[in-house]
């Protein structure tokens, strides 16, 4: 390569390239700020401010609080159904008709359809041991205190469910009612018989 050619080829490049300073166009700055602002608005609207309990479609903790459903009669029945099927239904049957030789029926039972619920609540809290007559049939029962380990509101829900299902129509029971009866019974109450239950107030 001759000296001439080399000079010709590289006339415009003089040594190492260098970065030069030039100001960014104003529209890029404006666009960036506008995008940041819109992002901020979107974040404020949808993020719940990092609250771990706020998920889409809910937007704020306040909205979530306002949307919480009240615990109504339907919810208590649904809750009682769940407890019934896991605790009581194994012996008394999902249909409340009982099982011959195992557990008496709850549907239409005079022990369930009482005006008050004192006697009924004694059955799961103390257990039944001995003779009891249900719907005209004599049973010899050995039922453990199945409800003693349940929380008050669970036991109340399941008794409410029993009193309001399979054609039964008796009033609801609250957790406070159960708490009172549990306190009266004390720890590890002795199981009752049908006659002992009858001696109790309804």
């Amino acid at each position, binding site marked *: 390569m001759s000296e001439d050619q080399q000079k010709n080829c590289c006339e415009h490049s003089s040594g190492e390239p260098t970065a030069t300073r030039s100001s960014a166009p104003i529209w890029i700055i404006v666009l960036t700020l506008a995008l940041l602002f819109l992002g901020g608005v979107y974040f404020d609207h949808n993020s719940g401010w*990092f609250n771990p309990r*706020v998920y889409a479609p809910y937007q704020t903790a306040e909205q979530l609080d*306002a949307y919480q459903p009240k615990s109504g009669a*339907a919810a208590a029945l649904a809750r009682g159904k769940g407890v019934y099927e896991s605790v009581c239904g194994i012996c008394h049957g999902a249909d409340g008709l009982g099982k011959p030789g195992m557990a008496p029926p709850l549907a239409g039972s005079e022990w369930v359809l009482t005006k008050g619920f004192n006697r009924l609540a004694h059955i799961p809290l103390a257990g039944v041991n001995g003779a009891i007559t249900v719907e005209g049939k004599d049973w010899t029962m050995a039922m453990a205190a199945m409800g003693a380990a349940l929380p008050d509101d669970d036991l109340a829900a399941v008794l409410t469910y029993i009193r309001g299902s399979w054609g039964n129509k008796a009033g609801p029971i609250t957790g406070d009612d159960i708490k009172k009866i549990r306190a009266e019974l004390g720890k590890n109450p002795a199981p009752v018989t049908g006659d002992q239950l009858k001696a109790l107030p309804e």
Partner: protein
Amino acid sequence: MKTGIGVFIAAAVALGASWAGLVLAPSLQLGNAKLTTVLNSTDAYPLQRPGMAAVGLQVYRANGCAACHTQQVQQDGSTFEVALTGAGKDPVTVSNLVATLKLTGLTKEAADAAAATIGAAGGKTETHLTATGADIARGWGTRHSVAADYLYDAPVQPGSLRAGPDLANIGVRAADANWQLVHLYAPRAVVKDSTMPSFAYLFEVRPVGAMPSAEALKLPAGFTAPAGFEVVPTMAAKQLAAYLLSLRSDAPLYEAPYSQTAKP
């Protein structure tokens, strides 16, 4: 390179920002997730999966179930419904009033207004919240999935592709162990036109012998084993079925509320 330090700083900021957004923030937000309680009750949620089901998660993982099945229910919104629970002293007025009002598919404000109107006339109401969305309309769940649903799962198997249906609530939809096992052994036996491959290698086809196995599958006609043989699930199949039965993310929670209105 005179601007080397600038490039390094810019790269560190870019990587650091995405790390902060994708790793640090979620970890701070949900890293300390604890047991929560079911709405309006004292029940803990979620419950530990029983032993068989906990091992079944690893069978689910080993067989690549998450490649075709998700475990995440999406929710688009929620609607309110006002239900009349008591007509009060003047049932005729209340029932006439109720007939004129729109009581389903309401917003929170409209539901409160309707309940107040009926309350003013002496009627008693309950307001029910229902979650809405395409997944919920398909019957895949009653609410959106939340972090608590996966608390005890390691690794979490949320999946991303839906060649098959979502399984977040398969234990609610098909709460029958025999159905689950038959479906794993011969999917077309219980779901016509299913595209799921058969997981027959999780089962043993063996001669019945002197005493039929109590665990032998009850297969529908056309899918039964040859005469004199029975289909018995292996331990892996039983674990997988137990895991599928334990997939029940339907409890109402504070973060995913809805009203349970199951009729007894």
